[in-house]
Each structure stands twice: as structure tokens, then as C-alpha cells.
């Protein structure tokens, strides 16, 4: 059966041909260029990746190929068909999965599948077999009669993919299918995608995860409406050969070392990875560390194999005016004894009706720590976070933040914490300055301090130039800076960050983390939630939550050590996370025998038959 498919794929080596593509949008009388002069070819029978920062034009390109938008310039050919002139023919062979869940939440899993089978004209005799196959592949068979709206984030994405696959499209266009999806579901989505490709389909997907890009046959890098690079991840890695090194020996001051390394000339990138700092140099020579030797005796440099991400950062960094989030030097946290616990959580439970969202959890966070809270959707992460911020009272147990019992004086504790929520929660219609003024008065800063802090915020976060523009119109990066500035205005001792880097490109993420590090160096305690497993490595300590309980707690290396096995000598945090989820009974996160044991980074792309 699959031979038919292979032959189609082999007949046309190029699935999509895009030439001189341009697209503009009118937004409030302004013309915004979404794509300019894009020329590319998507190879048939393989997975191609589309990467780039938010707003680079990835979604627009996918929509243009799917025939959902008409281009202003240029041409598109999908297996020789023009999506504008022959939309019906293109829609018949293309499966498009939008970034937002595009299914009917008030229909059940099965009803959604039925609808898509109807819409794509799948005949009744084929249907049953195909549904069975898709439900088995997505492991949704047990949830057939559940409303789509009641599925977890990962299951929704799998259902979305299943509905797109009912028609067996020749070309699959996936817009960030794995965003906000827990690592287990991510792996399952990838398994499905790889099975489709093995059966002859062509896949073009956009992604924010650079480790996913690594699994693609070819990757296209979009930046500010332009195509700035393309190539096979292997080639990208080859280009970076000799430029990637691990710096070890920082011992307890990993973060201080990373901050210093990031300032070194001749280095493109410096990130904490496990026990060492991973650096990328401008030229293929090891970094000169003589200068740092005084403060950090015993540093060792050893070459490491390059990753795709290194090439991405090296490519983008020169194009983007310095991304920085300020030095934070003005934050003055009260110097208390190091190691004193500032957040104490003991036997905390939270019930919503008869549903126990948080089950007797306990942990402590010490002053100046960067503490991570990890977990998939429904793990109880957000509930815990809200209780810690004093936004939600616990049902049972004790919660102390900055020495204040949250059950008695939540408001008093709130004056000493800063909070930055996942979504942009500032007033979009107010200017940058007005937002800062509002928060200054909300935190009751007196006039003198207000002036000083406002000046500090505008200067340090490089917002002076935008002080009077309305904050809703700012680019995402500026919005993030403003949100952080507002959260830091009253010089909090503890900073709560809820998914601060969700939807942010890798460069911006680095800037954010260097800001977090700088704060921690000054004694500010940072509690952060994230779903990027590699970011969890940047934390001093972390807890992994699932189904309301703490699965594991400790330093990243301790958690990684817990799952080390002979066949998995160097587990990543993601491996640990997945392994721990499998170990708890009764979770619906997938059966262990199906999932691969190595992390995404460990998996190399499969071998393809050359067309």
C-alpha cells in the first residue's frame, strides 16, 4: 500500500516551490511587511522546519502555502498546483493544522474525526479502519467520547493532528504543533509525524524548539520577514565545528561565570548546561580565559560537538541590535544571611470542590536561589504558583513567603514580591511611562522614590525611547522588558515569573535569563515556571510536579542522576521528566513501551531513501 505513496513522493522531488513571495498587511493604516522576497523549495517525502523568532513571518508563510492567504507578490506551487487559482485542488491534498487549536471543543473526539472525514470525503468503508488507526496512533482511543475541550493540551494537539490526517494529505503543514505541549506528548507527536513521513507524506512545520529543528531534513530560518538561512541541520552543525566548547570548573559559581563569559569579546554565546558552561566562539579557536583565571581558578576548556542551535544563534546575533535587559544594578535586596529560607511550603493542599489540584506538597527556596517549577498541563504548577503569590489561599498546610504567613497576611507578603504573569498583563492602551506610574502607585512608592525608580526602569530596560508610545504596540521583546520593569519597580526580594520565555525566540530567552541571573547574584530570590527543559538547567534547584504531587526535587544534576542507567548514561532533564511521569501509575501520558528512551537531542533523524 505504501508503495503507491512512495512513488508519488518520488515522482515529484519538490513538494512546494515558492518564488519571490511577498505579503503585506494593513494594520491601522500602517503597512506591515510580513514576508519579503521569499524563495524556497520544500523537498517531498521529508520533514522540513521553519524556524525564527516570533513575528518573523512563519505563520504567514504556512497560511500562504495552504491557500488561506493570497500573496501580494510571487508565486507558490504545491505539487504543481497554485493555491490561489486552484484552492479546492490544493485543499484536497494539503492538511493544515493551525497554531491555535482549530477543532470544535464542544464536540467529542469521535465527532471531530467524523466531521473531518465528512469534509474530506472519506468514504464510509475506509473510515472505520482509518479512525482505528489514528486513535491507536494518538492513543486517544480511550477518550473517544470525551469533549475535545476537556482534553489536556497535548491530547488536543494529537487530536488536531489526527483530524488533519484523516484525509491522508500529501503535504502536512503544521504551525508550531508542539508549543506548550508537555515533553511526553511532544515525543508522541513526533512519532506520528515520522510515521506519516515514512508513509510518503511531506511535512513542513514551524517550531520554536531548536532541538526539533535538528530532526528536520532541511531547515529554513526566517527573521524579520526575510529568509536568512537554509540548510540541513548536519551542515549547520558542520559549519560550527571547532567553535563550541565546554567550560568546566566553576563549581559553586556557575552563574557568575556564565555572566562573565557572556561579556567576553570573541564569544557569541554562553549558556549553562548541566555542570558546565557551553560557549560558542566567533572564530574556530578556544576561548581565551586568562582574564577570568583570577576569579575562577581551575577552569578547563574542552571542545564539544556543535548543535543546530549554535548555528542559529551565531547567525541571528549579528543581525539583532544588542538584546539586553539591563544590568539590574539598582535592585537592592536586603542582605540577609545566605541560605536562609525565604519561601517555605509545608504539606500544602488545594482542593477545587472534590478535585485535589495540589496534593500535600512541600519544598523550601533559599535566598538568592533561582528555583524552577516544572510540570505539564494540569500538574498543579499554576495553582501552586498562585498560592505562593498570595492570589489563592491553600486549603491546608502552611505557606510562608519572606517570613510572612500567607494565610494571615497575604497583602503584606505581596508588597515584598514581584510578579510577572505568563500573558502580557499590562495596560496596552497606556504608554510605557503610564504603566510604570500606575504600578508605582499601586505599590505605594512615595514621590521621591517613584521618580528614582521610574528613571531607573526606563534607563536600565532601555525603554526611554519608547516612554510615550502605547505599550500594546511595542514589539514582544520590549513588552517583556516593560513587564519585568513593572514587576521590579518596588524592589521586591522575591520575583515570581510564570513562563516568562513562552513564545520568545532563543536570543530573547538568553537575554531574559541573563537578567534573572543578575538579579539572583544580587540576592533576589527568583521562582520561575517553564516548559523549556533546557531552561530548567539554568535553575539552582527545581521541583518537578505531576498530577498535583512533587515527583522530584533537587539540583538539576541530582534529578538527572536519578534516571541514569547503563543504556542512558547522560540523561537530560527531559529524559528524567519523561521517565518520572512513566513511573507514576494512572497517568494518561502515554505507555512506556511506545516512547523512545533517548531525548530529542539524542535522536538523530531517520535515514531516508533518496528520491
Amino acid at each position, binding site marked *: *500500500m505504501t508503495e503507491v*505513496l512512495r512513488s508519488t513522493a518520488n515522482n515529484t522531488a519538490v513538494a512546494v516551490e515558492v518564488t519571490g513571495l511577498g505579503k503585506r498587511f494593513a494594520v491601522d493604516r500602517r503597512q506591515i511587511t510580513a514576508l519579503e522576497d521569499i524563495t524556497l523549495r520544500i523537498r517531498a517525502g521529508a520533514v522540513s522546519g521553519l524556524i525564527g523568532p516570533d513575528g518573523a513571518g512563519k505563520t504567514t508563510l504556512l497560511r500562504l502555502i495552504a491557500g488561506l492567504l493570497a500573496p501580494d507578490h510571487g508565486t507558490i506551487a504545491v505539487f504543481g498546483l497554485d493555491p490561489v487559482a486552484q484552492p479546492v485542488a490544493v485543499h484536497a491534498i494539503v492538511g493544515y493544522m493551525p497554531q491555535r487549536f482549530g477543532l470544535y471543543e464542544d464536540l467529542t473526539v469521535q465527532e471531530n474525526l467524523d466531521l473531518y472525514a465528512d*469534509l474530506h470525503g472519506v468514504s464510509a468503508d475506509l473510515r472505520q479502519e482509518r479512525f482505528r488507526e489514528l486513535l491507536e496512533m494518538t492513543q486517544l482511543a480511550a477518550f473517544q467520547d470525551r469533549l475535545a475541550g476537556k482534553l489536556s493540551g497535548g491530547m488536543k494537539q494529537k487530536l488536531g493532528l489526527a483530524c488533519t490526517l484523516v484525509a491522508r494529505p500529501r503535504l502536512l503543514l503544521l504551525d508550531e504543533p508542539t508549543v506548550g505541549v508537555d515533553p511526553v506528548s511532544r515525543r508522541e507527536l513526533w512519532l506520528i509525524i515520522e510515521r506519516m513521513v515514512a508513509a510518503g507524506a511531506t511535512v513542513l512545520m514551524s517550531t520554536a524548539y531548536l532541538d526539533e529543528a535538528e530532526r528536520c531534513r532541511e531547515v529554513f530560518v526566517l527573521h524579520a520577514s526575510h529568509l536568512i538561512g537554509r540548510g540541513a541541520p548536519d551542515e549547520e552543525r558542520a559549519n560550527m565545528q571547532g567553535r563550541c566548547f565546554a567550560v568546566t570548573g566553576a563549581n559553586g559559581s556557575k552563574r557568575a561565570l556564565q555572566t562573565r563569559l557572556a561579556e567576553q569579546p570573541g564569544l557569541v554565546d554562553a549558556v549553562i548546561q548541566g555542570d558546565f558552561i557551553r560557549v560558542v566562539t566567533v572564530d574556530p579557536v578556544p576561548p581565551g580565559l586568562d582574564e577570568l583565571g583570577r576569579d575562577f581558578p581551575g577552569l578547563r576548556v574542552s571542545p564539544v560537538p556543535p548543535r543546530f542551535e549554535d548555528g542559529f544563534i551565531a547567525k541571528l546575533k549579528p543581525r539583532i541590535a544588542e538584546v539586553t535587559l539591563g544590568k539590574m544594578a539598582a535592585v537592592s535586596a536586603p542582605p540577609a544571611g545566605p541560605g536562609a529560607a525565604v519561601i517555605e511550603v509545608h504539606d500544602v493542599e488545594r482542593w477545587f470542590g472534590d478535585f485535589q489540584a495540589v496534593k500535600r506538597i512541600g519544598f523550601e527556596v533559599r535566598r538568592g536561589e533561582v528555583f524552577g517549577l516544572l510540570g505539564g498541563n494540569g500538574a498543579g504548577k499554576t495553582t501552586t504558583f498562585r498560592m505562593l503569590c498570595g492570589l489563592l489561599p491553600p486549603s491546608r498546610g502552611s505557606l510562608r513567603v519572606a517570613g510572612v504567613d500567607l494565610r494571615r497576611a497575604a497583602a503584606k507578603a505581596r508588597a515584598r514580591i514581584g510578579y510577572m504573569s505568563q500573558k502580557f498583563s499590562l495596560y496596552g492602551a497606556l504608554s510605557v511611562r503610564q504603566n510604570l506610574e500606575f504600578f508605582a502607585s499601586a505599590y505605594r512608592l512615595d514621590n521621591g522614590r517613584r521618580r528614582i525608580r521610574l528613571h531607573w526602569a526606563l534607563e536600565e530596560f532601555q525603554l526611554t525611547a519608547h516612554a510615550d508610545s502605547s505599550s500594546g504596540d511595542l514589539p514582544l521583546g520590549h513588552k517583556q522588558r516593560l513587564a519585568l520593569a513593572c514587576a521590579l519597580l518596588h524592589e521586591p526580594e522575591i520575583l515570581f515569573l510564570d513562563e516568562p520565555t513562552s513564545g520568545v525566540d532563543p536570543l530573547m530567552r538568553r537575554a531574559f535569563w541573563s537578567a534573572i541571573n543578575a538579579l539572583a547574584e544580587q540576592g533576589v530570590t527568583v521562582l520561575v515556571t517553564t516548559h523549556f527543559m533546557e531552561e530548567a538547567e539554568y535553575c539552582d534547584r527545581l521541583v518537578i510536579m505531576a498530577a498535583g504531587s512533587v515527583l522530584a526535587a533537587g539540583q538539576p544534576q541530582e534529578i538527572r542522576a536519578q534516571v541514569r542507567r547503563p543504556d542512558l548514561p547522560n540523561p537530560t532533564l527531559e529524559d528524567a521528566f519523561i521517565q518520572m511521569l512513566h513511573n507514576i501509575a494512572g497517568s494518561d501520558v502515554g505507555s512506556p513501551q511506545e516512547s523512545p528512551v533517548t531525548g530529542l537531542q539524542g535522536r538523530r533523524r531517520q535515514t531516508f531513501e533518496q528520491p
Partner: protein
Amino acid sequence: MTMSARHVPLSGPSARRLRLLGLIRKEFLQIRRDPSSIAIAFLLPLVLLILFGYGVSLDAKHVRVGLVAEKPGPETSDFLSAFEHSEYFQPILFTDQRAAREALARRQVSAIVRLRSDFARLALSGQSAPIQGIVDGVDANTARLVSGYMQGVWTQWLQRQGDQRAEESTQAVEMRQRIWFNPAVRSRDYLVPGLIAVIMTLIGALLTAMVVAREWDRGTLEALVATPVSVGEVLIGKLVPYYLLGMGGMALSMVMALYLFDVPLRGSLWVLLLTGTLFLLAALGMGLLISIVSQNQFVAGQVAIITTFLPAFILSGFIFDIGSMPPAVQAFTYLIAARYFVAILQTVFLAGNLWGVIVPNALALAAMAAVFLALAWRRMPRRLG
């Protein structure tokens, strides 16, 4: 497990039928799961009909009237007894004007009838005896009715006086009222048929205005546009379920009108069903158009209420007589589909199949339906942005 073969998708009419049935089934499932659309379709007609059928009455009955006889005597009590025996009034006696005025100010009475101290003398002498009537004008409708009734009572009393005094003043002209089509002059009999138009506007326009906008809001339209579904199929897939829902609402309203409120049906049922279909298509077309243009549930809901429901309520002739509106407003009512349907409904229920009324109004409805549906079809996006 091996992947099953790439299917040869169905094509032509059978594929089209499959897609349409799929869309219609989906819409019905959503209607069934969403309590708010069920409420709009079935609960709202029930509430509106009961409210208007029982609660709201434009007839003035048992209006409390303050009667002031400054110098009570046989003549005054004779006059005032006319009020006491009327089913329209519930008289309350006062002896001086001040107390009556206070009662009016406190809205304890809606009108005052004052017989001055010289009433008996003047009436007996055959001269015109002045009667002061004061009507609370806050509710203009009731005020007009009350003053009309008061005049009626006054004329009757004069007549009786005349009869008694040996018919010395024979009246040359006599006015006799005869009311056609609604002999009982029950406001319910014309409110309830008109209400059917309002209810169908709600189901037709408000519900459809919300449902396409909902698909925009939730991102489901983006996924739908990427399938082989055509614009016509999407529109028909929306029209059919809400047409059936609207006709269901109409059937419910008719059953209640005929059997609960005893409204007579003098014309034929099939005329109602046919014109109801035309009206519903116009309302659905308008709702779809609003939904397509606004692309946002909240805005669509607001626009639908302002452009369809409120005009159907106020400018259709359902409560307020179009003939007594200012000319500019009257001209505007021609743009409101409910106007034509209210005319048809009231005629078919109360007068019968008067083709002279039904045909032109039905043609107007057909034209509006065609225009709105064509606009909806044209404006329905073939792609995003």
C-alpha cells in the same frame, strides 16, 4: 502496523452531500451542547409569549380614577356612578381637589375627574356643566385611553340626562362604534402574532450572528477554510439547522398563540409557514452577514441586537403603530424585514388570507432574503486576511 492506502476521496455530488451533512450534523451537535442557544430558541419564546400574552396589555382596564365631588348631591353621584359601573375604571372618592392631586402625584390614581361645587346647579339648568379631567400623562398610551373613556362616560351620562328630560334635545348625529377584525379589542390578539416575528428575529439573526463569529473567535474557521469545503456549503450548513430551529420556534409560538391565548387564526396555516420561511431566510441572511463582517462574537451580538431585534420590537408595527410615526421614521421602517412579516401575521391571524396585503409584503421579504443571502455569500471569506 502499516498505513492504510491513500484513499481516492469521493468527489462530485456525493462528496458535496457528505460535506453538507457533516456540517449540519456538527451544527446540531453544537446546538445541543450549548445551553444558551437552546435557551434562545425555546425558552425565550416561552418567556416572551407569556410576558406579552399575560403581563403586558395595552387595554386600559380597572384604571384607578380619583373622583372629586366638591359638593356631593344626587346629580354628582348619578354622574359618578357611571364610572363605578364601568369595567374600565376603579373609582376612588375624594372630597377635595388637594387630596386627589396628592394621590395623583403619588401615582395612586391615574386620573382625576372633578365636579365643581356648581355642577348640580348648572346641570339642572340645562347649561353646560364644566367637568375637569386631569390625566397623568407620564404613560402617554394609558393617558390617551383614559381620556377617551372619560369622554365616553361623559357622553353617555349626557344622553341619559337628555332621555330623562323628555328627549328635548334630539341628537342629529349619533356615533356608533363598530370594531372590525378584533371585535373584543383584545390587545393580546394582535400582540401575540406580532411577537412571533420578534421571536423568529431572535432565533434567526441573533443566533446565526453569534455562530459564525464564534468560529472566527475560536479559530475553527481557519481550520475549516483549509478543507475542501466551499463557501456555499459553509453557509448552507449554517442556514439549515437555524432554519429548522426558527421554524420550531415559530411552531411553538403558534401553538401557544392558538391554544393558550385563544388568538383566532382566520387565514391559512400554509400561508404562515411560507411567509415565515421567507422572513426567516431574510433574518438568517442578515445574521450571517453581521457575523461575517464583524468576526467577533461580542460585536456580532451587539450589532445583531441593535440592527435586528430592537427594530423588530420597536419599528415593525408590533407594538407601535407605524402610521403614527414621523415620516422619516416611517420611511426607515421599510428597511426592516420584521415590518412586512408583522403585517402578514396580523392579517392572516385576525383578518384572513387578504392577498392584497400578503403578496406585496411577501415579495418584499423575498427580496430582502435574496439581498442578505447574496451579500453573506459574497462577503464570506474564501481565505483569511
